């Protein structure tokens, strides 16, 4: 009569939603070789310690398994990556190879042709080089350092050596190790004590550096009392035949400083976005994450904040939009490692056309984090019946002096709200779009105007054809 089974695991064991029947198709056939790493390092003219670091990371990469939780990434092809990053490779992208949908999206978003080529990685850097140089002049006057990682490695070697992959070590997970071995491009930003940078810095300018966007490493140090807003990415889809993005972002927020890190990730829908972002915040510091995840086939993205000083505050506001063929596994991790810290995570997700959005969060309050306040809010909006929206927040509390609250909600667009708007003369399609834009508003209002506008356009684009 029924099952005698003692404990139905339902594919979940322990804390991290481990999947029982993971299919290990993934094998590194040709494999990344030490020779290729040597070549990369030589081509960049790197110091010996960086070459050794890369080689050690390669060893770690080869010894680690792929994660047995989360989306299926067994289709990932490392060979493709090797051909891309190999400096000897003759591979060059061609405008004709860029898929039609990408070109259409560019047109719909009103992006000029030359810029389109830049985004598609097929053209020379468009105008942004000039813009970039001008910004640099202004910043230099303030004492702010903003340059690409390769140059920073030469000009600020000691600083880079002290911080590079210390927050996200290569041992963190397999793709952190891969990053350590093949990283290329990215930005280094240093804001001196007390300096408030009033224009947002945008990584968009550096899109065309070799390997740019694929394995870029972003290192930002905001010194005591300083203030910076950094924006990564742009809302236009970035296309590449290389389908892996394993970037790394390390943020150091010193005492009393504030850093706002905004990202709009809209990789093309063939991409595996396995990015790692982590911030370490000292006493009285503030870290704010604004995150929009739109593109890519598979995403595993969990920006993490380590609150290691008293009275640190962390805010995370994120939106994930998963449409057809997309499996976006995103979330936020917050670790309260000091007393009187506070955090607020506000995550929203939208799914449609068979998309799968999975919120995977971690909130850890350590035993010394007394008098902390933490709140997490997850809202999921389902636009049709063929999609999936899951929420899996893990909350681990080891101190009694906490004030913690969590709330999660899943549902569809309220019929009443749609009806109300229609009764005011708005079409059903527009009514739904308005409601979705309203749902996303907490994120768009935190972004500079041009990004907010682009984001709204993107949503309208995504919603086209979704009526009931």
């Amino acid at each position, binding site marked *: *009569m*029924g*099952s*005698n*089974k*003692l*404990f*139905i*695991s*339902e594919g*979940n*064991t*322990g*804390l991290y*939603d481990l999947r029982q029947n993971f299919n290990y198709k993934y094998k590194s056939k040709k494999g990344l070789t030490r020779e290729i790493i040597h070549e990369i390092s030589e081509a960049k003219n790197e110091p010996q310690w960086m070459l050794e670091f890369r080689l050690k990371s390669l060893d770690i990469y080869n010894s680690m398994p792929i994660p047995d939780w989360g989306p299926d990434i067994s289709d990932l092809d490392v060979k493709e990556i090797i051909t891309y990053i190999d400096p000897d490779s003759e591979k060059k992208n061609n405008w004709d190879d860029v898929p039609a949908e990408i070109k259409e999206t560019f047109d719909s978003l009103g992006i000029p042709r030359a810029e389109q080529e830049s985004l598609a990685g097929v053209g020379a850097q468009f105008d942004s080089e000039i813009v970039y140089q001008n910004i640099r002049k202004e910043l230099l006057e303030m004492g702010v350092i903003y340059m690409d990682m390769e140059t920073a490695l030469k000009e600020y070697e000691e600083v880079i050596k002290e911080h590079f992959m210390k927050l996200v070590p290569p041992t963190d997970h397999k793709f952190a190790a891969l990053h350590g071995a093949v990283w290329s491009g990215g930005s280094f930003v240093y804001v001196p004590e007390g300096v408030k940078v009033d224009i947002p810095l945008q990584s968009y300018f550096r899109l065309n550096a070799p390997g740019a966007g694929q394995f870029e490493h972003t290192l930002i140090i905001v010194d005591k009392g300083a203030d910076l807003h950094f924006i990564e990415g742009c809302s236009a889809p970035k296309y590449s035949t290389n389908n892996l993005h394993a970037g790394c972002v390390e943020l150091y927020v010193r005492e009393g400083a504030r850093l706002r890190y905004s990202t709009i990730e809209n990789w093309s829908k063939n991409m595996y976005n396995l990015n790692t972002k982590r911030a370490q915040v000292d006493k009285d510091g503030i870290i704010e994450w604004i995150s929009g995840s739109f593109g890519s086939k598979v995403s595993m993205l969990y920006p993490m904040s380590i609150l290691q000083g008293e009275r640190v505050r962390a805010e995370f506001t994120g939106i994930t939009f998963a449409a057809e063929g997309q499996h976006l596994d995103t979330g936020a991790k917050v670790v309260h490692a000091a007393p009187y810290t506070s955090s607020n995570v506000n995550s929203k997700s939208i799914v449609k056309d068979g998309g799968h959005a999975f919120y995977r969060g971690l909130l850890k309050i350590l*035993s010394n984090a*007394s008098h902390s306040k933490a709140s997490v809010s997850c809202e*999921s909006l*389902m*636009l*049709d*019946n063929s*999609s*999936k*929206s*899951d*929420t*899996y*927040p*893990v*909350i*681990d*509390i*080891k*101190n*009694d*002096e*906490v*004030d*913690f*609250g*969590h*709330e*999660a*909600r*899943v*549902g*569809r667009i309220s019929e009443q709200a749609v009806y109300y708007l229609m009764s005011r003369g708005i079409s059903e399609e527009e009514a739904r779009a308005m409601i979705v834009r309203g749902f996303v508003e907490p994120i768009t209002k935190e972004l500079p105007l041009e990004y907010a506008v682009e984001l709204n356009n993107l949503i309208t684009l995504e919603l086209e054809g979704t009526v009931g």
Partner: protein
Amino acid sequence: MLLKTISLNNQIESGIDRDGVISKSGALIKSFQPGKLELSSADLKGKIKDEIIDKVLETELKVNRGYYIEIPRGKEIVSPIIINHLINHNHPVINEKNVIMVGKDARVTIVFDYTTEEGLIGIRNGVTELYVEDRSVVNILKLQRQNSLSYSIDGNYATITGKGKVNWFSVELGSNSSITSYITDLKGEGSEGNLSSIYFGNGKREYDFTYTMEHSGPHSISRIDSRGVLKDQAIKKLNGKLKFNQGAIKSRGSESEHVLLLDPTVNSTVIPSIFCEEEDVSGHHAANAGKIKESQLYYLMSRGLSLYEAKKILVEAALNPLIEKIPVDYVKSKIAGEIRRRLET
């Protein structure tokens, strides 16, 4: 009080089939047929010491406790059926298998009360399966108050068809380590599953709870309400899962979890998860954790109450919303007594 209930105390020790028909109430109660339980040790890995898993495996998982209970259609059994299991030195490891079948339009309340002989490391390994049909209402109350050396491994599964309703009451007070799951499959249209969970962890107790409400039927309703207290070095993990399968149109599921932390050395982990494949549903959960508010303690003490009395009132207040719902009085007083005892230290 007990005279009015139907009590079955450890009646079946050797697993021999014996028909027991309690004709007055109309419930059919038989001792369970001897057989074996499956133990998936992979699932318990990390949750419980290997020595304990080994001790259980030594019994070859032969069922030595449990009942087959059948409530015929239309039968309303007014008095609760109370089943006491005292784990004693004759059988320090019990493999308990219960199957409860409730026909249409029936009502029943069944209480399982688990205790252990003083000083004995008792291990209870149990599976309870519940099948509820159209328009029936079933209350299952499990009171776990095994001694602090013992282990409790309990899997509870309910399948509800039609507009059946199950109210689970889980009261976890005892054992050194308790790994419990309540998984409810809301298959029927309009089916309803409610789980009220109360727990008090103190000393070095470890609690690991998995509560799943799976919605398959349209218009199904679920509610998980958990309130607990943690003291000393107690550890608790709670995985509350709300699942909406495609087709569970217009279902509503909600979950709320509150835990009161009485010492800085406790560890509370909660995973309030939602898995949703159906757009026309409403799923909601809320979780919070905190200590007794200083201001409330101070207020009560300023009214002349001792620290102990003030704490007791506030702890009881935290748990009362669920204690009140318990349909069997003697259980309520047992809980109140335990709270008092544990706050005294």
